[in-house]
């Protein structure tokens, strides 16, 4: 059993190295995915900011926006994960891996580890843009920063597994990119840009309980000291559920005979 674990770790880290090599060799793929969140951040702050912020003032609105934009950055990064997973499956290299005596899940584990690392790097880059245009945390303690980081990693893990499942289920890179679209659209209808109470009443429950809003509200609470309430455990529940679901779905698809 422990030798199985050693095999899993060893082969998964080989697969991770391969994925990181891809990311390093073709950084434009990763950076392109960051364009959407960064553009939206700048657009909302400098163009729509006056109308959207409800008289908050620019720097307060930047501060309100950044946590949501960071969550959206993860959604955007994992679209790339779905696309590269689908690309991998259409090429022969994964068929080769399947005929080798390597740990069966390592192709997926390596991909997931790479995608989580990439999400963290992306969040740091976009976060830096946020700080550059005026984002400041409100006296967050070291523990709160750590919790914020942990939350971002958990969200990245959950969305990555879902994206991997989407990639495995798509016949082509284009199909994977379309299938993963909701991961960047969902934040648009969350509390990322405007507070829930400013939305139409019938829509509020949808926005409130979809996966992004509780995660964004928890992140805001940790960094800005706003009220977290029950958001933290709803967020964790979503993360756990999506991770388990995405993992099961991915494994089932990967273990099926290839077409």
């Amino acid at each position, binding site marked *: 059993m422990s030798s199985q674990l050693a095999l899993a770790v060893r082969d998964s880290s080989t697969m991770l190295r391969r994925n990181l090599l891809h990311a390093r060799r073709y950084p434009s793929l990763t950076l392109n995915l960051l364009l959407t969140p960064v553009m939206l951040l700048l657009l909302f702050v400098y163009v729509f900011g006056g109308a959207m912020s409800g008289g908050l003032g620019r720097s307060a609105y930047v501060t309100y926006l950044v946590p949501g934009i960071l969550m959206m950055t993860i959604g955007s990064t994992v679209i790339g994960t779905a696309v590269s997973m689908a690309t991998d499956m259409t090429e022969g290299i994964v068929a080769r891996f399947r*005929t080798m*005596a390597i740990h069966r899940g390592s192709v997926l584990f390596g991909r997931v580890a790479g995608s989580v690392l990439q999400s963290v790097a992306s969040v740091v880059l976009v976060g830096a843009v946020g700080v550059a245009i005026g984002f400041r945390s409100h006296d967050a303690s070291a523990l709160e920063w750590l919790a914020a980081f942990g939350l971002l990693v958990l969200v990245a893990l959950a969305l990555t597994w879902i994206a991997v499942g989407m990639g495995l289920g798509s016949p082509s890179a284009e199909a994977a990119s379309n299938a993963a679209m909701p991961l960047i659209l969902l934040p648009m209808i969350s509390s990322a840009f405007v507070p829930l109470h400013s939305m139409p009443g019938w829509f509020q429950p949808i926005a409130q309980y979809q996966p992004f809003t509780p995660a964004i509200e928890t992140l805001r609470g940790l960094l800005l000291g706003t009220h977290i309430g029950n958001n933290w455990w709803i967020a964790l529940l979503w993360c756990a559920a999506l991770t388990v679901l995405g993992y099961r779905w991915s494994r089932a698809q990967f273990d099926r005979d290839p077409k």
Partner: protein
Amino acid sequence: MTGLAIAANGLRKSYGDKTVLNGVDLAVPTGTVFALLGPNGAGKTTAVKILSTLIRPDAGQVSVGGHDLATAPQKVRAAIGVTGQFSAVDGLITGTENMLLMADLHHLPKAEGHRVAADLLARFDLTEAAGKPASTYSGGMKRRLDIAMTLVGNPRIIFLDEPTTGLDPRSRHGMWQIIRQLVADGTTVFLTTQYLEEADELADRIAVLHDGVIAAEGTAEELKRLVPGGHVRLRFTDPAAYRSAAAALAEAARDDDALALSVPSDGSQRALRSVLDRLDGAGVEADELTVHTPDLDDVFFALTGAPAVPAQPTATDTAAKAPAEENAR
């Protein structure tokens, strides 16, 4: 041990209601080269995919390297190397990186991995291109890298699905050389090919897959004995000479379009002289004369029922019909 590297019994596989393999039996002795022939769509790739653990058969028992495919697929995988019909290289990374990826997955120590990678790249004439992304390689270079990757880890049994398709003649001979060398080292090779000459050159035993079953199996010599003897082919440029020759050699098969006759013959001196004498008697001289002894092509066509000149008659038919329809309107 049975002395068999690959043993398959009653292998079946269908896709939907299309039966691809309908009870295939295979026996490949350790250390030999086995060639699987068959027309496009016969199921060669399907057979390789099953034997190499990529897909599961619907029925049948398979043991590879002494391990049961159904109960010990990981042990089978540890014994084999596979080069599929379609490229299985990572195009985004370089040739060397592809090789090192294989070395890592075979858990070779770092230094040994680098040595094996460099050796194999050199053996497959890829040293110069080793630092370039594999997506920039030509088809033949990708194919060579593909096979080099398969050899990392020194597998005892190797599956090669059309290993030389797309290679130029020099690379093809190089590949044959490498396959012979592998066999000399005791490796078992299971290959599929469209080039019957290749099977003739390399394989100890050849099987022809047709309609989901093995239509014939044996050495190249054994298979050649299955088809009727060869023929003498005569070609003319003058239609009149062609007609007189056809009259003199009534048993010949005629190809009126090409002005060519094909006279059944065992290729012996006596048979040849008789043909020439009869041509002299008719006062005609052929512009070209070739003697055909039966080769694997004949075996292949005889067993799989594929016509020597496929599709041509239908093409002329439709061409001839089209103007007639025009007139009818």
